[in-house]
Structures are given as C-alpha cells and as structure tokens.
C-alpha cells in the first residue's frame, strides 16, 4: 500500500527524494480516503519558500477543507498543474500521478526524521 521509498508525516503527507536535491510531495492514500471526494486543491506558487511543519496549501473535499503541511523545508520548484482541472486524481492515484509539489530541499536531513512506510502503516492502522 505505502511505497517503501517514500517517507511520511503524521499529518498524512508523503515525500520522495529524487536524489538531485529535490523531493516530490503528496498526500497519502489514507488522507484522501478520510477526506472523501476531493473537489479542489490549493497549492503554493512556484518559487514559494516553505517550512517543514507549516501550512503550504489545502485540499477541499465535499466534507471538509484540510490544510496540507510542508513535510520538508525548501523552495517550491514545480506544482502539479493537472490538479486544478482534475482534483479527482487525488482520490485515484495519490501516490503517483497526483503528486502535489516538487521542492528544492534546504535541509535534506529533515527527510530522515519522517516516518518510514512501515511506521506510517502502523500509525494509520492504530489511528
């Protein structure tokens, strides 16, 4: 369910380091399932500086609006433009096609402090 090469937060974001100083960020399968049908995704602009643990955008479903927290610090270098037209992709493929942003990491070591796939699985299993 949860890819082993991702890292996860307790706020249900995932990060995948690309190995070139950037990382891709998204929300987890569990997050989209809890939110239900997603109807709107609000992402930061390219160039925005984000800080680990702080709000960087929001995801809106029929049920609720939920903040998305930056799992790592850095600068947003790319956003997933597709989500503006097709927010439902977040329900369909949250770990793949429907990534949210790519971030140039300012503190790459932050990733190691996040949860492993195994830890995250037991965290959401227990929640």
């Amino acid at each position, binding site marked *: 369910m949860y890819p082993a090469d991702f890292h996860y937060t307790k706020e249900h974001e995932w990060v995948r380091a690309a190995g070139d100083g950037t990382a891709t960020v998204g929300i987890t399968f569990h997050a989209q399932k809890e939110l239900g*049908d997603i*109807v*709107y995704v609000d992402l930061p602009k390219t160039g925005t500086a984000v800080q680990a643990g702080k*709000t960087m955008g929001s995801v*809106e479903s*029929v*049920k*609720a*609006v939920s903040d998305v927290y930056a799992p790592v610090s850095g600068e947003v270098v790319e956003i997933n433009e597709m989500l503006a037209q097709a*927010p*439902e992709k977040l329900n369909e493929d949250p770990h793949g096609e429907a990534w949210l942003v790519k971030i140039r990491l300012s503190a790459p070591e932050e990733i190691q402090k996040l949860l492993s796939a195994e830890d995250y699985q037991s965290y959401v299993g227990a929640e």
Partner: protein
Amino acid sequence: MIRKVRSHITQNEPLLFETSSPGKIGYQLPELDVPAVDPAAVLGKENTRGEIEDFPEISEVEAIRHFTRLSTYNYAIDLGLYPLGSCTMKYNPRVNEAVARIDGLAWAHPYQPESLSQGALEIMATLEAALAEITGMDAVTLQPAAGAHGEFTGIQLVRALHQARGNARKKVLIPDSAHGTNPATARMAGYEVENIPSNERGMIDIEALDRLCTEDTAALMITNPNTVGVFEENITRIAEILHAKGAMVYMDGANMNALVGIARPGDFGVDVMHLNLHKTFSTPHGGGGPGSGAVAVKSHLEPFLPTPRLRRAENAWTWDYDRPSSIGKVRAFYGNFGVLVRALAYIMAHGGAGLRNATMDALLNANYIRAKLEPHFEHPHRAPTMHECVFSDEIQARHGVRTGDIAKRLIDYGFHPYTVSFPLIVHGAMMIEPTETEGKRELDLFIDAMISIAAEAVENPELVLKAPHSTRTSRVDEVMAARKPIVRWKPGAEAPGAND
C-alpha cells in the same frame, strides 16, 4: 413522468423560464401621457438592450403560485425546531418586526441631517451601551455587517494597537476547535496562524498555549463556550498567558447565547470580541443576512474603532469623524440599521432578568437533549454542556450510518438537520443547539425522532442511508456540484444529477 401526483410540496416546480409562453403578460401599464423618447438617444446606445433573450412571459397568478410554492419548500423556525448548532437559530419575536417597521425607522435615510435622525442615533447609542454592559467591555462599534466582518474588524484593531506600540507582530493563535472564519480572518489581516490543540475534555491545552505564545503573538482568537459547547474554564489563566506577552485576547462571540446575563467576557480577560446580533439577539437570519457583527473593545483599543463614532454634544447626538488613530470605515454608513433596531427591541423587551432567563433556558434545553440522547449516541467530551451539545456518529458508524445520513433522515421526520461534521475535532460530529426558543413538547418530538433513527441505523441501515424519502428530490450529486458546477440555466439543458 407525471408531474402532479401529490400536494405541491413534493411536486417538481419548473423555472419561470420553462413555463414561459410567448405573448403572456402579468401587468398592465397606463397609456403613455408624456412624449415618447428613444432610450438609445438619451442614454447612449451602449447602455440599452433591444431585448432580453428568453425573458419569461407568464401571467400574474403563475408568478404568484411559483413563488408561493417555492416558499413552502423552505424550512423555517416558524415551522419547528431548527437545531443547527453554532448558528443559534432562535425565534425572532414579532415585536421586533413591528418596531423595525415603524415609518420613521423603516424610511430613515443615512443622508438625512443629524437633526432629523436623533431618534435613530439614540437607538444606536442605547444599543452600544446595552452591549457594552452585557459584555463587560468599554466601547462598541455597530458598523460590521456580520460575524466574519466583525472578526476582521476586531483583528484590524489588534493590529492597529500593536502597530501604535511599534510592532504589529506576526502570528495569531487559534484553537483547533475554532470556526473556519477565525484562521481566515487572521490570514486576511496579514497574520500567520498557529493551531493550539484541544485536550480530551475539548478545552484548550494550556501547556501548548504557554509554549506557543511568544512576543511574536498578536492575539489569541478564542470562542467561549467553544464549538464543542464547552466553557473554557481556564479562561482567566489563558488571558494571563497572553497578556504577559503583550498579546490580546479576541473572543468570537458566536456562542454568546450561553453567557448573556450570567458571565461577561470583559470580566474574564477578553480585550476585543464581536457579537452576532443576528444570532444572540434574535433578528431573522439564514439565507444570507443581513446580519450584524458588532465589535466590543476594552478602553485600550477604543481609539482605533472605525469612524465615525457617536458622540453626545450639546443635548444632541452627532457623528465624530475626528479620530486620528481610527482604522477608518469598515462599511458604508453605520451598519445594518434594521438589524440594530431589532436587537435593541429584543434586549429591551427582555430586560436584564429576561435575558438571563433566556440564557438559562437555552442551557437547560441543551442539557435536556444531551441527557436524553446520551444513551443512544456517543458523547465524546465529558465536560459540562453549555448551550449546545456535540455527539459523534461512532455507534451508528458501526452499521455504516454516518452523521450526514442521520441528518438526512431527520428531514423525513420533519426537522431541519443539526450541524453535520463540525467541529472538525469530533469525528462524525452531530452538533445540536436548541436555543431557549423551544418548549419541552417540541424538544421531545425531536428527541423521539433521533432515538427512532438510532434504532433504524441498527435494524434497517438502508432506510437511513437512502434518506430523505419524503422530499421532492432526495440525494443530489454533491461531488459533481462542487467539481463541475453549473451555475447558469440554459434553454433545453437537463438538470444534471437531479434524482427524479
């Protein structure tokens, strides 16, 4: 499809556009007794339209029937209990309407000279004084048009105070149980928002607050009682923590119906707050207003209040625009005056003792509902209930029935639903606020309906999951409505997602 099978409440009412028949008219005009002019020549061609495409042509009785039928699709406090939590859907006493319709008030114009507006000004001054007394604050502005506008005004006042002291500061602290308008307000006023977690009793975690509150904190925005319907019993300690860092305590007055006549925010450390006059002090609301978000402040924030301020001069009321520290106007003229008149009528008709009684009745009603429903629905917070109670759908969810399903089934029982899925910190929240309006008989009808639905959720979950069964349309496609909204009717287009 046969369109007319039952009484009108369940019948599909077409749009006026769809009933249009060329040449039909519902009016008669007298013959023109002045020379005809060409509008295009007088107004300029770009300002006139030759024809309005597909403008409906119908008879008078068709128009009357259309709107009368639509009005009966509505649910209103005049039809029964309106348990929408956090909204304080109390009854608007008819005397309010009688007073607001007095000719001199209904026809007053804001450009009328002050000498001809003394009565209106006196009403506003009296209301300001009454609200200051009820809240224990020093000054009140009646300008803001509704609650969120009041919040924004209040936080602007906080910013102005900090700026005057040399540093506007950076962040506003907001509990995770807050109304969504609180963080929106703080962001709009240019502040960062920091969340404070709640403890297991639904109250602010004091240790977390102590840790997060710094010299960068402009204010805490707190709702008391909070959205779980619980009084923040550490409120004076909370205010001390904020004040020690030079930060302000903003109170969202959404739940003031639990406090009027019993406790005053000004006495427990609040610096600035708004009141929803359209909630706490009756006046009709819902359907988009108008509302009134009066803001009350302690004296240190008074210099920043919006202009103009009412001032007593030489035995007459006058508007004072000479307010150099003011944040300026926040609304055209002086607020939603008709709402102000109704709020004052409500306050004066009750008197101090009456307002206190109303509050006690609101608390009694909420506690009665809690006691009666607790055996049937999960009540997650073990703290005393104030004016509203929040259950969770945990027991029913085991049978696949969620808070939204129970709410829709309530419609079949003839009630407006409670507030669904709010506050967010309660999973599957069901938020019920009866207000003091209801007597025991109506409360028992509601309680019986809820208990009956709780039984249905176990015995026949499908019945609840497919509700409502008695309405014109049942469940609509909320997802498509949000993802691909169709906001304009076009000729020949079929309504999408309608459940016929």
